[in-house]
């Protein structure tokens, strides 16, 4: 089957994100904006003994960006912080299984870079 832009994974996570929300007791937070569309993503992480115990996101974003943020939070949780900070576009795309064009790639990468910023705090 050829990949489509709005894959089932994107639609599912856009409708029912699993890691959206606030994180009381966060050890690091960060926020950034996509200048192309004005989308805003905020990440909060809780790192205990070098491991990401929890990650949550909030913000105004499109379906692709929201789905990417949800997957990013999921992939980060339970990993050593140093490893989570190295998560890349291909890790997220593997879960999303979508044909994301270059014009929308920033929607995928924004949550990853914000997570990195939150972990660096």
């Amino acid at each position, binding site marked *: 089957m050829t990949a489509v*832009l*709005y894959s089932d994974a994107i*639609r599912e996570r*856009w*409708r029912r994100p699993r890691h959206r929300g606030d994180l009381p007791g966060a050890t690091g937070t960060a926020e950034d904006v996509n200048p*192309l*569309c*004005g*989308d*805003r993503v905020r990440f909060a992480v809780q790192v205990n003994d070098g491991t990401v115990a929890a990650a949550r996101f909030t913000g*105004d*974003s*499109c*379906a*692709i960006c929201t789905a990417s943020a949800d997957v990013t939070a999921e992939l980060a949780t339970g990993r050593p912080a140093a490893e989570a900070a190295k998560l890349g576009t291909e890790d997220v795309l593997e879960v999303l299984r979508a044909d994301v064009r270059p014009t*929308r790639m920033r*929607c995928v990468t924004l949550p990853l870079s914000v997570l990195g910023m939150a972990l660096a705090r």
Partner: protein
Amino acid sequence: MRLDETTRGDFPILERVVNGRRLVYLDSAASSQRPRTVIEAMTRYYERSHANVHRSIHTLGEEATELYELARDRVQRFIGAAAREEVVFTRGTTDGLGLVAETIGRTLRAGDEIIVTEVEHHSNLIPWQLVARDRGAQLKAVPVLADGSLDLQALDRLLSPRTRVVAFAHVSNVLGTIIPVAEIVRRARTAGALTVVDGAQAAPHLRLDMSALGCDFYVFSSHKMLGPTGIGVLYGRRAVLDSLEPGRGGSEMIKEVWIDHAQWNDLPWRFEPGTPPIAEAVGLTAAIEYLEKLGMDRVAEHEGALAARAVKGLGALPGVRVFGPPVGVPRGAVVAFAIEGLHPHDVAALLDAEGIAVRAGHHCAMPLMRCLGVVGTSRASFSVYSGPDEVDVLVDAVAGLRSKL
């Protein structure tokens, strides 16, 4: 015959099939398409007449110069300017507004005030922010009202003897509001301020008459009015242009040069340093001739009817919010809307899958987005080749969109 029925065949790109559907191009406010006559005029120029302008003493140079200066005459007539010296070619609206801001900026002092509006495109906001920062001037904004119009009473309160510039759009690129230019110019002039009008969305849509508008500067792009990219027009009232030092230096804008000083060239070349966009000027001539043949009153009527049809059609759909002036109030050729629960970029991508091209996002008007309380909007816009059938295709597609994500 409807305007789009007479023009459609002149635009080769409209024959394109996108994602298996006939292209429905509703993004003309970002950049219009161009008729065959424009493309052919530029090709002919490159194949037969190209050389550098003004100082090439040979046949091709003379032809190129003649064609370049002919474009100036065509623009002068098209916008109702009093003299050809008032028409300066730029690279586009952003370039023209930047040039005006830099040039006027040099005359500003600490404590001077610049008034803009909340509906401005970033291109008519950021240059003034830069100038204000450099000169210690104050930047103030006229608020936008709920019906998409400007609060002119607030303008009266903002105007003061310290006001040096009032910069504003003729037509909002998001709301489509037609701003009463002559009215604002009158008030600004009484306060002793210069007026700078961003005409990017008005030039393709309305009949322009500089003598009736009365503004000091009027700026627009060719590529939104059927012409090529890379060229724009800066109209400046002669008395004002004459009093200003050139903003940028180089060849063409000088008469005589010494190591430590120079004498500026006459208008309009004083403001055109470097080799100008010559082929683009030739294309712009063809675009203006095409529009003049249609008649700008007919163009405005056609595009206005399409916008009204879109406002009515989209506004009747549940969960769809349409921005800008209410039905019955004249507007530019743009209609911005938001669909509850859908992000504008997803709206644009889903419509593209059906061959429909619209703009989505903040439309380079982030302060206005904040006023509207949205991250962004989707925007359909129209040109001479757009038809009511295309508006209906859009409305039908939008009606079915919420079930797709």
